[in-house]
């Protein structure tokens, strides 16, 4: 019995008979499916890694509420927005005498343990009294980094005595270290340094009691119901938020890495999609006659789509398992090389990836399918469309011609849409390639003047006119520890504080200095809506806190300035910039003199930001333009202070401010009159650790001590004696870790920065090369497919030409000329586009700066692109030769009869 003829059996018949032709298509489909499912795997990996990293660094809690009173514990218990909470029983604060730094010691109930999610790196969690598990950073800051599991640890313990209170006299306690935990306090501390003394990092066993005379305090780890975070009110208690939005650099880098991979995968997916469209197109155009015949015997458009759609569906199904396996293990392998990545795809992700890749392939194949189904039977069988197109075109006969050239020219004319599309893809590839290589290779590396920068991670300043008493930073001991390392050549410490200068009368220059800090010293609403018309009322709109500050301290005619102190050699280096007087280090050290940094002129300007956004008030040392636009200049002042003039400096240190930002009564004040020893109009930005200042006072560290209390260093810059190697860098980072433990810090290593930049550039190079190669490959495959399809479609023409005496080389030459045209047009357009952008960018910059500078042209790096195009030509030409040779194997009669 004969099989029933259905669209499926027709599709299967096609698949069986055209195995060879389908191999290329199958490879394309597998690639497209690999890239599409890979993209989804990467996205899922981002989420799983983000959750895992969050859990490892911060635990599962959304908030931590510290040392709760009975009252706020009751309020907390009544909160309906909490999903869960667990309690930490705080027993006290443990520290070592040598380091004076330590950690809260507590035990966690089961719920708290779940929410805090301690990561055990070594040993076990404490099970009996006298045992502790400590976070790595806690051990480091207590100078106990070398302790092993089972070692005895002696600590001073300030015993807890209820919420927010500890007994004054510390007791000696000895514990056995049974577990080392991954850091969590360090990360939470970086988010909120003020809670340094509250987050426990040393844990004892459940049920441990406080020492005699003490009373435990309860801290709570809180998990909020989904979507209820906004409704949770914790304002009545001491708490910190462990919010994912404050995830910081680690998350950003995770996101960047993942997005980069996903984008790469996406680009590859699109390119392979284009490849599928193209491959199906060629495949179907070769089978136009079959489609035409089916249409002629009554197949509807829907049936045509059904037959060929089933083919692609069957091909996709065949490819799916292999594609998913490749993408699964590919992503697993790649993420294995990336720090912090956890690849845990669920069944949902796997099924989603399978479905997405199937849909993607089907969608890509539908484009040519729809086009093919629109062909009328006669059009398919006799290619009437081309005949019609030819008839519409005006052709002038040539009297003399070279056959290959004329044939190529005519083909380019008749198939110009296909050729233009191919050239366009190539043009885009050439443009991207030229742009990427030129700009990537000319990007300069970051220059660090020192080998290590150690700086405070969080801004500790309160307002630009006073300082907080509880200043954190680095001590002389820290600096000396670094200097004691034989490989360290020098350590430069920087301190910057806020101060106020006062004078007999309020000069224009002082007023403009204050305008420079308009965001702090004047009413926000007024400053944000200031215009040229309302500018005159600025002085009447001082911020209430600034007015209150001046009244409380009885300061009149005051201007806020920065005071920066650096080591002597650095201050001495300012000599080149001195415009009046000279730098006398002895007088600076004695506190008799200071160096004044003040521009010769100050200009207050209003810059109109945007419609509706109002003006922006800023003070500049000279008139400038922003984005080619002149500012509205409202006021100017000339420097009226000279060498030898007395400068009244007032330094105020406050404990805290009230809810209005007014300083409380608990403050200290130091007034000092110094002489201006030297004046510089400007100083390098490195003198201003907080950045942005144009005017201020600079002195030496000793000089600063004469002006005010001893401040800790905000920055330590380390210069090494010799070249830094990987081992030296690792040693230095360990040393710096010791210094910065317990102090939220940003540490930059020039060695690591260079390594990272080099690695990142290498990765970029690989990525861009991959994208460029892929785009060139897509362009190449489109060119190849276009020409190959035409060779196959044009068998009869090849036969005719052979019959009238054309040799293989005549035929190859004709197609190679077509190829050269497509490559030539694509490359020319691509390079022209790039040159226009390259030239335009340089000229744009030049015009923007009003012809003051010569245009800056980036060094061109085009050889990579040229090489790519040449390789493309070689590959395509070889393929053409191969295809023609294949046709030549048939006899002329076979060519002509299109057997």
């Amino acid at each position, binding site marked *: 019995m004969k099989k029933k003829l259905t669209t499926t059996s027709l599709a299967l018949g096609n698949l069986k008979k055209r195995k060879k032709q389908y191999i290329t298509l199958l490879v394309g489909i597998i690639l497209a499916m690999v890239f599409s499912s890979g993209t989804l795997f990467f996205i899922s990996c981002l989420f799983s890694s983000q959750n895992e990293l969050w859990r490892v660094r911060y635990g599962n809690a959304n908030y931590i509420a510290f040392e709760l009173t009975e009252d706020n514990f009751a309020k907390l218990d009544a909160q309906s927005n909490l999903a869960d909470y667990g309690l930490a029983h705080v027993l006290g604060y443990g520290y070592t005498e040598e380091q004076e730094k330590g950690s809260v010691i507590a035990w966690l109930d089961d719920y708290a343990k779940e929410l805090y999610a301690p990561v055990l790196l070594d040993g076990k969690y404490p099970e009996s009294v006298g045992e502790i598990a400590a976070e790595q950073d806690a051990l480091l800051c207590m100078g106990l980094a070398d302790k092993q599991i089972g070692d005895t640890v002696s600590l001073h313990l300030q015993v807890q005595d209820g919420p927010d209170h500890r007994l004054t006299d510390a007791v000696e306690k000895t514990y056995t270290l049974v577990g080392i935990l991954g850091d969590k306090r360090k990360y939470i501390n970086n988010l909120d340094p003020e809670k340094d003394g509250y987050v426990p990092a040393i844990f004892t066993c459940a049920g441990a009691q406080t020492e005699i005379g003490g009373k435990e305090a309860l801290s709570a780890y809180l998990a909020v119901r989904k979507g209820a975070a906004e409704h949770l009110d914790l304002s009545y208690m001491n708490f910190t938020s462990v919010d994912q939005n404050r995830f910081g650099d680690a998350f950003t880098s995770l996101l960047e890495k993942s997005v980069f991979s996903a984008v790469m995968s996406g680009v590859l997916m699109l390119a392979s999609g284009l490849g599928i469209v193209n491959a199906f197109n060629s495949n179907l155009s070769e089978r136009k006659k079959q489609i035409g015949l089916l249409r002629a015997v009554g197949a509807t458009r829907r049936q045509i789509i059904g037959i060929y759609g089933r083919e692609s569906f069957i091909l996709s199904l065949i490819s799916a398992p292999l594609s998913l396996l490749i993408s699964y293990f590919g992503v697993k392998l790649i993420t294995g090389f990336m720090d912090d990545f956890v690849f845990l795809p669920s069944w949902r992700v796997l099924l989603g990836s399978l479905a997405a890749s199937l849909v993607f392939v089907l969608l890509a194949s539908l484009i040519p399918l729809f086009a093919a189904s629109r062909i009328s039977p006669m059009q398919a069988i006799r290619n009437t469309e081309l005949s019609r197109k030819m008839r519409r075109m005006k*052709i002038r*006969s040539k009297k003399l011609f070279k056959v290959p050239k004329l044939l190529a020219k005519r083909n380019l004319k008749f198939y110009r849409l296909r050729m233009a599309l191919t050239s366009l893809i190539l043009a885009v590839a050439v443009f991207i390639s030229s742009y990427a290589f030129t700009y990537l290779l000319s990007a300069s590396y970051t220059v660090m003047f020192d080998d290590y920068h150690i700086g405070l991670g969080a801004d500790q300043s309160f307002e630009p006119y006073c300082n907080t008493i509880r200043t954190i930073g680095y001590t002389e001991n820290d600096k000396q520890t670094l200097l004691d390392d034989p490989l360290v050549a020098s350590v430069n410490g920087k301190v910057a504080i806020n101060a106020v200068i006062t004078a007999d009368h309020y000069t224009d220059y002082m007023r403009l200095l204050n305008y420079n800090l308009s965001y702090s010293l004047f009413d926000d609403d007024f400053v944000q809506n200031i215009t040229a018309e309302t500018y005159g009322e600025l002085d009447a709109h001082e911020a209430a806190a600034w007015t209150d500050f001046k009244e409380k301290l009885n300061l009149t005619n005051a201007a806020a300035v920065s005071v920066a102190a650096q080591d002597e050699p650095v201050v001495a280096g300012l000599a080149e910039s001195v415009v009046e007087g000279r730098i006398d280090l002895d007088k600076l050290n004695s506190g008799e003199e200071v160096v004044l940094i003040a521009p010769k002129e100050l200009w207050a300007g209003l810059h109109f930001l945007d419609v509706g956004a109002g003006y922006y008030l800023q003070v500049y040392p000279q008139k400038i333009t922003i984005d080619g636009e002149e500012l509205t200049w409202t006021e100017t002042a000339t420097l009226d202070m000279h060498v030898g003039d007395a400068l009244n400096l007032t330094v105020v240190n406050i404990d805290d401010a009230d809810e209005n930002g007014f300083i409380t009564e608990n403050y200290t004040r130091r007034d000092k009159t110094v002489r201006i020893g030297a004046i510089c109009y400007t100083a390098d930005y490195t003198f201003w650790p907080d950045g942005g200042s144009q005017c201020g006072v600079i002195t030496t560290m000793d000089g600063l001590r004469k002006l005010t209390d001893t401040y800790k260093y905000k920055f330590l810059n380390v210069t090494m004696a010799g070249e830094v190697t990987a081992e030296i860098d690792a040693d230095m980072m360990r040393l710096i870790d010791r210094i910065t433990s317990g102090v939220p810090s940003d540490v930059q290593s020039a060695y690591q920065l260079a390594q990272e930049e080099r690695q990142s550039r290498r990765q970029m190079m690989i990525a861009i090369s991959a994208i460029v190669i892929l785009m060139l490959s897509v362009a190449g495959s489109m060119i190849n497919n276009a020409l190959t399809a035409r060779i196959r479609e044009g068998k009869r023409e090849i036969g005719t030409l052979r019959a009238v005496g054309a040799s293989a080389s005549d035929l190859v030459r004709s197609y190679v000329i077509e190829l050269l045209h497509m490559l030539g047009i694509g490359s020319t357009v691509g390079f022209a586009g790039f040159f226009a952008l390259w030239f335009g960018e340089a000229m744009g910059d030049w015009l923007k700066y009003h012809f003051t500078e010569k245009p800056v042209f980036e060094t061109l790096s085009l050889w990579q692109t040229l090489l790519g195009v040449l390789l493309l030509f070689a590959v395509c030409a070889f393929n053409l030769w191969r295809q023609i040779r294949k046709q030549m194997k048939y006899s002329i009669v076979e060519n002509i009869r299109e057997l």
Partner: protein
Amino acid sequence: MANIIECHALTKEYLSGESVVKAVDHISVGFAQGEFCAITGPSGSGKSTFLHTLSSLENPTSGRVIYGGEDLSKYNDNQLSILRRRRFGFVFQAYNLVQELTGYENILLPVMLDKKKPDEKYIDKLIDMLGIGNRIGHLPSALSGGQQQRIAIARALANKPSILFADEPTGNLDGKSGREVLSLLKYVSREFGITLILVTHDLGVAEQAQRVLTLADGKIIRDSKVGDLA
């Protein structure tokens, strides 16, 4: 008269499924200079295949083709291409014009492939003779079947060949056009002294030839001379 082309034991076999079909079976025959010979026979008798193997459009399975005393089986592909463009002319049933070239360019094709300067007088004469002067600037898709076939004849003659091979040249044409084309073929053959070897299944056409070869099952079953051209 000496033969300009002859074949000895010319055989062409095809594979049809698992069996071998002998389309041309050991044919030995010669054709004189300026002769007009029609090859006829029933469908599937091997007449077209014989023409194709004789004219080097297809390689024979065995046997030899001798042209001007030279054994063509010793020619490589390039030499055969040169021979086709210089010494042979072909006219096919389906015209086989290059669709991207105009009529005039199609006519010049063999001359241009040979990188020669065309003999314009001769080409003009051909065009006049064939009556296609007003259509040669058009692409084939804009021409009728008869016009296309005339251009194909002009192309076949453009390089002044010594033999013109025609495979059912009137097969696709109506009676009037067919008669006109045949007259033209006879005329140019006589005018330029060209050997015309023409395959046809139309006895009316065959009757006009000086010599008629009748094929059946790949063999010549009759070789008859019908006298001088009328």
